[in-house]
């Protein structure tokens, strides 16, 4: 069985390694083959960008060589796919090569799309790329006080990021001694301070305790950089001295260009994780159109389920379990406290009060991630 994994991010990498272990004998005797095609020879721990933005990590700490993370039996090429021919079970890559497969897993991820809001890319700071996170930190260092507005695009990767960056900015300004000259103003697209009702019930009084103002039902429409005004679709506006955004995201262009899904999100079965109408095409991570968090954690748990199923398909011809929608997200509540939210399709989360212990567990996970990527955790 030829298994082709497109994308070397968290989902693709965990899937490949997990599969390689489950199919050790089949790989050894030539009954199975795993190939990964990725756009980069490096693997980034993307959640670390949050810390880069406030000067608590540097970008070099976020990377490993992709090949070093993969089990040796996995054939790895830096050769991104440009054309998907799903009817004939093959893809064509940037180098012009054709790769055929029996099973394909698409995990190409997502990209920021600040260009969708006029003025946003030019006038806001954000931290979803190495370059932008470093730029944001340099801007923060120069900031001497004023109104800081946090604005959130839809959909976005890492649903905890809006809260986390707000609490971390609060502590950053406090440490610098300019909190009394700084007003933090948080905006959010729906009618409470977070998607998860129980998280909002915790975050809202935290904002009030810390003096952070907030405005809900606020979806960005345009940024007037000359006058430093952010306007919303709902007809309101707010002034800012420093605008921080969690930009909206789209799926990768190659997905749209190949007609696999609107805005780059592939229609996916929520339990089996196959592309709708395709039995041998699986989708995981940000690339799905599923109504669950776009987050590394989601990709991780999807990869666990998929690896079990694809290995079972290779061995007994059928998958063995459904993905239950499991997501686990840490929530940094400042520089030294954190909590977490765990939920699935059936059960909402019930986050506890933040503690230092959970924060230090998150700090440890920032290093343990590399064991996760190798499929060990």
């Amino acid at each position: 069985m030829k298994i082709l994994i497109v994308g070397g991010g968290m989902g693709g990498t965990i899937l490949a390694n997990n599969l390689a272990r489950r199919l050790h004998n089949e790989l050894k005797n030539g009954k199975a083959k795993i190939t990964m095609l990725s756009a980069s020879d490096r693997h980034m721990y993307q959640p670390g960008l949050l810390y880069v933005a406030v000067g608590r990590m540097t970008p070099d700490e976020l990377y490993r060589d992709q090949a070093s993370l993969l089990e040796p039996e996995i054939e790895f090429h830096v050769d991104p796919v440009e054309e998907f021919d799903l009817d004939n079970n093959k893809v064509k890559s940037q180098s012009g090569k054709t790769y055929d497969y029996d099973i394909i897993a698409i995990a190409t991820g997502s990209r920021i799309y600040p260009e969708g809001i006029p003025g946003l890319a030019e006038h806001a700071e954000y931290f979803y790329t190495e370059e932008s996170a470093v730029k944001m930190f340099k801007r923060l260092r120069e900031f001497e006080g004023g109104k800081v507005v946090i604005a959130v695009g839809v959909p976005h990767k890492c649903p905890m990021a809006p809260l986390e960056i707000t609490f971390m900015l609060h502590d950053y300004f406090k440490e610098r001694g300019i909190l009394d000259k700084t007003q933090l103003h948080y905006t959010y697209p729906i009618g409470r301070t977070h998607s998860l009702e129980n998280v909002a019930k915790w975050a809202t009084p935290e904002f009030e305790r810390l003096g952070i103002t907030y405005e809900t039902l606020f979806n960005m429409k345009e940024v007037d950089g000359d006058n430093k005004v952010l306007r919303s679709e709902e007809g309101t506006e707010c002034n800012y001295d420093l605008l921080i955004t969690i930009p909206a995201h789209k799926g990768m262009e190659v997905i749209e260009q190949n007609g696999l899904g609107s805005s780059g999100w592939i229609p996916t079965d929520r339990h089996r994780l196959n592309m709708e109408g395709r039995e041998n095409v699986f989708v995981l991570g940000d690339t799905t159109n599923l109504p669950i968090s776009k987050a590394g954690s989601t990709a991780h748990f999807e990869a666990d389920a998929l690896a079990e199923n694809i290995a079972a398909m290779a061995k007994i011809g059928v998958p063995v379990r459904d993905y239950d929608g499991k997501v686990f997200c840490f929530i940094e509540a400042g520089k030294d406290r954190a909590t977490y939210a765990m939920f699935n399709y059936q059960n909402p989360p019930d986050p506890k009060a933040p503690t230092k212990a959970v924060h230090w567990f998150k700090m440890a996970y920032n290093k343990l991630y590399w064991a996760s990527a190798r499929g060990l955790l």
Partner: protein
Amino acid sequence: MNDENVTVVDARGSFCPGPLMELIARMKEIEVGDTLELLSSDKGSAADVPEWVNKVGHEMVSNEEKDGIWHIRVRKAK
């Protein structure tokens, strides 16, 4: 009702980002005059979707519950 331009957004079982956030994201993708039908297992959607739709100026078409699932139709007005 003409269903030709109705796109279904299946947000059943979505706690995060949640049904309203799914709706807001998909509204960006459709044309003015087209309709989305949101499927939600969250009873809160029956109130929070109309609140947003009315504030932003789109049009509520229908809002009904069938077997524990809310079917909420919204037409993009601008």
